[in-house]
């Protein structure tokens, strides 16, 4: 696929709906998607992608490469927040650096699903283990962020108000609703295989692009509403929000080469490393690191890194990986 075809696929639905949402906010339209509908569609997308992943994982089987991908994903979910934290500490205090670093160690399911749609349009397959990798990468960075915050922030060690029960944090991190739906549907796909795929096709296949279009429209609105916060973020955070996905993507491409992954899997692994969480991590950080300001860590991931990845990152990563595999 050449660049023209890539752009053609890129500007076919669902991606353009993101720009419609963004435009609606900038043009001060009253467009608003009710929160419960957004929540429903996000769960639908996770269920559909998890189910497809399970079916594909059944076909490919649990190979050495699959295990290697899952292990490297967990390692990167621990390593990315560590180096992100020390970069962010140049300008931010410990709580905000820890919370933002945790966001970058985790993943954006919407970016991942949009990337999967680009591959599907191009007729390129990728393995079901990538959905499992996404689920495994959601939570470790939350734990790393909290450990960094507890070890390095200046607060009275006897002040119990800073201490959140680690067991409770682990439960909330590893059993949040998104992970339960994603892993649960992956398991159902794995067990039910092609027969299940046939049953679920109208739900997980036929309406998938329409639902993703609708969700990206909403994400455009949500990202647009956070754009104002970019001005307050300053050049350092804007630069971080753009450069960090590029650095993480470069690492993803390098590791994909080392693991000898095919084009589709390389792209999906790269997208996982390059994205940042603006749903699961902020909710956990609000409780685990109450001193951190959501007005900083949400807009960087949501209004800078997410649009950057959708507009420029995904085509760039795809083009680089395609050139390597050509």
């Amino acid at each position: 696929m050449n660049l023209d075809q890539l752009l053609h696929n890129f500007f076919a639905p669902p991606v353009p709906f993101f720009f419609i949402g963004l435009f609606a906010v900038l043009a001060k339209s009253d467009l608003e998607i009710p929160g419960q509908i957004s929540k429903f569609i996000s769960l639908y997308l996770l269920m559909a992608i998890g189910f497809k992943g399970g079916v594909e994982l059944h076909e490919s089987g649990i190979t050495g490469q699959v295990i290697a991908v899952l292990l490297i994903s967990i390692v990167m979910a621990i390593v990315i927040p560590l180096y992100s934290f020390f970069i962010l500490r140049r300008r931010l205090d410990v709580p905000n650096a820890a919370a933002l670093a945790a966001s970058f160690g985790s993943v954006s399911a919407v970016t991942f699903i949009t990337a999967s749609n680009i591959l599907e349009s191009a007729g390129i397959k990728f393995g079901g283990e990538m959905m499992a990798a996404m689920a495994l990468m959601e939570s470790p960075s939350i734990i790393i962020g909290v450990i960094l915050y507890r070890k390095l922030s200046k607060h009275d060690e006897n002040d119990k108000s800073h201490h959140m029960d680690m067991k409770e944090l682990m439960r909330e991190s590893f059993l949040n609703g998104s992970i339960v739906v994603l892993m649960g549907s992956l398991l159902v796909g794995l067990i039910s295989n092609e027969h299940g795929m046939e049953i679920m096709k109208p739900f997980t296949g036929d309406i998938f692009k329409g639902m993703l279009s609708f969700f990206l429209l909403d994400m455009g609105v949500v990202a647009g509403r956070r754009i104002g916060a970019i001005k307050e973020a300053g050049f350092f955070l804007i630069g971080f929000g753009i450069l960090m996905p590029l650095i993480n993507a470069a690492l993803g491409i390098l590791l994909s080469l080392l693991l000898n992954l095919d084009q589709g899997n390389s792209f999906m692994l790269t997208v996982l490393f390059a994205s940042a969480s603006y749903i699961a991590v902020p909710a956990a950080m609000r409780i685990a690191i109450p001193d951190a300001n959501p007005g900083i860590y949400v807009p960087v991931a949501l209004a800078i890194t997410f649009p950057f990845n959708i507009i420029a990152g995904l085509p760039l990563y795809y083009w680089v990986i395609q050139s390597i595999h050509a």
Partner: protein
Amino acid sequence: MENDVKKIEIITDSVLQRRLVQAVDATGVSGYTIIKDVAGKGLKGDKDGHGISGGFKNFYMMLICNEIETKKVVEAVRPIISKYGGICIVSDAHWVIHN
């Protein structure tokens, strides 16, 4: 007067709802009303209700209690509000119908 009661209103982050409800339940009060996904603005910034993470949404809880229950509820929610932010208001009320 027999019908005089206290009205407790609590507004804080949506992500804290489960914790706050647990703390209130532990006091033994018989009931409350919750309104989810409440928008507004306060010391912790603009809670415009957008996004699905809950980070920019509040929830509202209202309880009608007697004097003793009120003290228990206020002490139960105090550490949560002090740590994470939010507001807890107690006002005098007078119930007219309660079935």
